[in-house]
């Protein structure tokens, strides 16, 4: 399908506004300054920013109450996302809202699990981030529902409703919630890929980016499955739609010797990405694919998950890729998604700084977990 070349004025308006907002995100130097502050100074520095003032000063009361600060940051994120959602018109709105469905999935699963375990409704409400299609009023209705059946009834009309119908008050098989959540995410990626291929501006590029994201997600989960399960069902766990075929992951999953692992991994596009991530992380341009392959093999061989700081570096590269695509397609859905992702990363960085300080982690180590 050919992409639209004529941009409606509203697209230009929205994308320009979001580009402008992106420039107001905290710079790397701010995080450097933040890491040299004490915990109350950190909170004050965040609260002094106009964007955060309302939520932070409204919710955060005592210096030790960092969960309140976290809630304030997520409330700010939700407000920002809803603001963007209201701002976007037409197909841009459709794509953005579908992209934000992942927050709906998080919220719905929190409510379903909370209802199942009989959690306090106030506690459930505090945990939610109403940043997607389900707004606060809808989520409140879900929380107010008497039981699980009523919650599922209330979800009627939600685009992913048919995936949660198996949740019921009656006895459910163990692990059903996890299966429902996985089904929701599978459907989420399927829907996004379908919408991306409908010919909306930037849809093709978005699809390409999504395939890239799915590949990273699948590879990461392949390591997790190997580390956490003796006989994993790779085929059903992998998300379809990535550029690497599911069969490839199934083949990699059964590899037990180093050379085959390295050869199979080198055939995917992920080895160059992991190499770039390692070079970025260690600030050493001399790191080659062999060394990265060696590192990945050692984790694979020891049945361990991927290294978290490498994941952070991969996320950085993923966002750089998105920014690059957004710069190429300036009036498409990509600048919007780029802003949404950068905003999420900003909140994540602030949280990492504050929590890292709370746990007494050295600044150098905290800095490695920041996506800047």
């Amino acid at each position, binding site marked *: 399908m050919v992409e639209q070349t004529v941009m409606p004025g509203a697209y230009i308006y929205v994308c320009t506004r979001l580009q402008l907002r992106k420039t107001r995100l905290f710079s790397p130097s701010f995080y450097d300054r933040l890491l040299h502050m004490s915990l109350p100074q950190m909170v004050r520095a965040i609260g002094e920013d106009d964007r955060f003032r309302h939520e932070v000063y409204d919710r955060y009361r005592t210096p030790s109450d960092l969960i309140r600060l976290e809630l304030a940051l997520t409330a700010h994120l939700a407000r920002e996302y809803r603001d963007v959602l209201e701002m976007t018109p037409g197909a841009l709105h459709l794509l953005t809202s579908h992209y934000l469905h992942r927050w709906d999935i998080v919220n719905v699963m929190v409510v379903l699990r909370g209802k199942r375990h009989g959690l306090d409704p106030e506690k459930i409400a505090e945990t939610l981030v109403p940043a997607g299609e389900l707004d606060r009023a809808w989520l409140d209705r879900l929380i107010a529902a008497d039981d699980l059946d009523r919650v599922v009834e209330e979800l009627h009309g939600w685009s992913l409703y048919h995936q949660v119908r198996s949740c019921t008050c009656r006895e459910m098989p163990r692990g059903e919630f996890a299966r429902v959540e996985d089904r929701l995410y599978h459907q989420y990626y399927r829907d996004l890929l379908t919408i991306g291929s409908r010919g909306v501006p930037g849809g093709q590029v978005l699809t390409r980016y999504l395939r890239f994201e799915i590949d990273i997600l699948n590879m990461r*989960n392949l390591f997790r499955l190997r580390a956490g399960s003796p006989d994993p069902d790779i085929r059903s766990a992998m*998300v379809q739609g990535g550029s690497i075929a599911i069969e490839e992951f199934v083949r990699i999953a059964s590899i037990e010797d180093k050379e085959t692992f390295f050869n199979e991994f080198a055939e995917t596009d992920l080895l160059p990405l992991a190499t770039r991530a390692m070079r970025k992380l260690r600030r050493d341009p001399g790191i080659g694919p062999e060394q990265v392959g060696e590192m990945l093999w050692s984790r694979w061989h020891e049945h361990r998950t991927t290294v*978290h700081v490498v994941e952070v570096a991969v996320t950085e590269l993923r966002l750089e890729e998105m920014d690059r695509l957004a710069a190429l397609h300036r009036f498409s859905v990509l600048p919007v998604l780029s802003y949404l992702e950068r905003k999420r990363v900003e909140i994540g960085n602030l949280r990492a700084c504050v929590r890292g300080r709370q746990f007494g982690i050295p600044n150098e180590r905290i800095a490695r977990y920041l996506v800047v």
Partner: protein
Amino acid sequence: MVLFEEIRPTRGELIAVKRRIILSERAHAVLKRKLDGLMLELVSRLPEARAAEDALFEELVRAQEELAVATMMVGELGVLIAAESIEEGPFLFVSSTNAFGTLLPSFSLERAKKNLEDRGYSLLGTTPVIDDVVSAYEHLILGIVRAAEVDASLRLLAAEVARTRRRVRALEHRVLPELREVRRMIELRREELDIEEHARLFQAKRIRANREAESTRRPADAPIEGSPSCAHRGR
């Protein structure tokens, strides 16, 4: 403190005291052997306790580090949401083993370590950092149970050692010396009584012998009827 005035220096009492001495000596020997056994058991378990404590400390540090990283990466909310997803906790089974008459607890934890698909949270809704923190806490809970088992056993053994030592010392320094003193007193008293009895018997025998001798002598010395000595006695 035994009141010697209350002790009856009878043969029955002496036999009873002797029996009590024999019983106490036997109990003392048995308790001493038990004390030695308990001490050996306690000492043999100390390295195990130290190892369990060190392992627990390492697991705790690792779990805290993983939790710190998880809280940094997905926030406390992310960790909480994953924690709320857990559908089934581990089961703790308690049994006991006998060590020198002391019942020591034995804990076994089932379903503490779970596969990824049994943990209850979704693969796609979480990140590897959650796997690592869950795995670290699974190891931690196993370490806690192991350390609790060893610690409880040591405490019970130490309490039993103290109790047994107190009994041994009581037998050694109080019960047995007192019983032996009682036995000595009874024996002395009985010896005195025997001497007294012997003296009395001797005296009685002598008196009796004198009387008999007197009575046998009388017919020869008796005065003839009508003699002056007989007339004098009749007056």
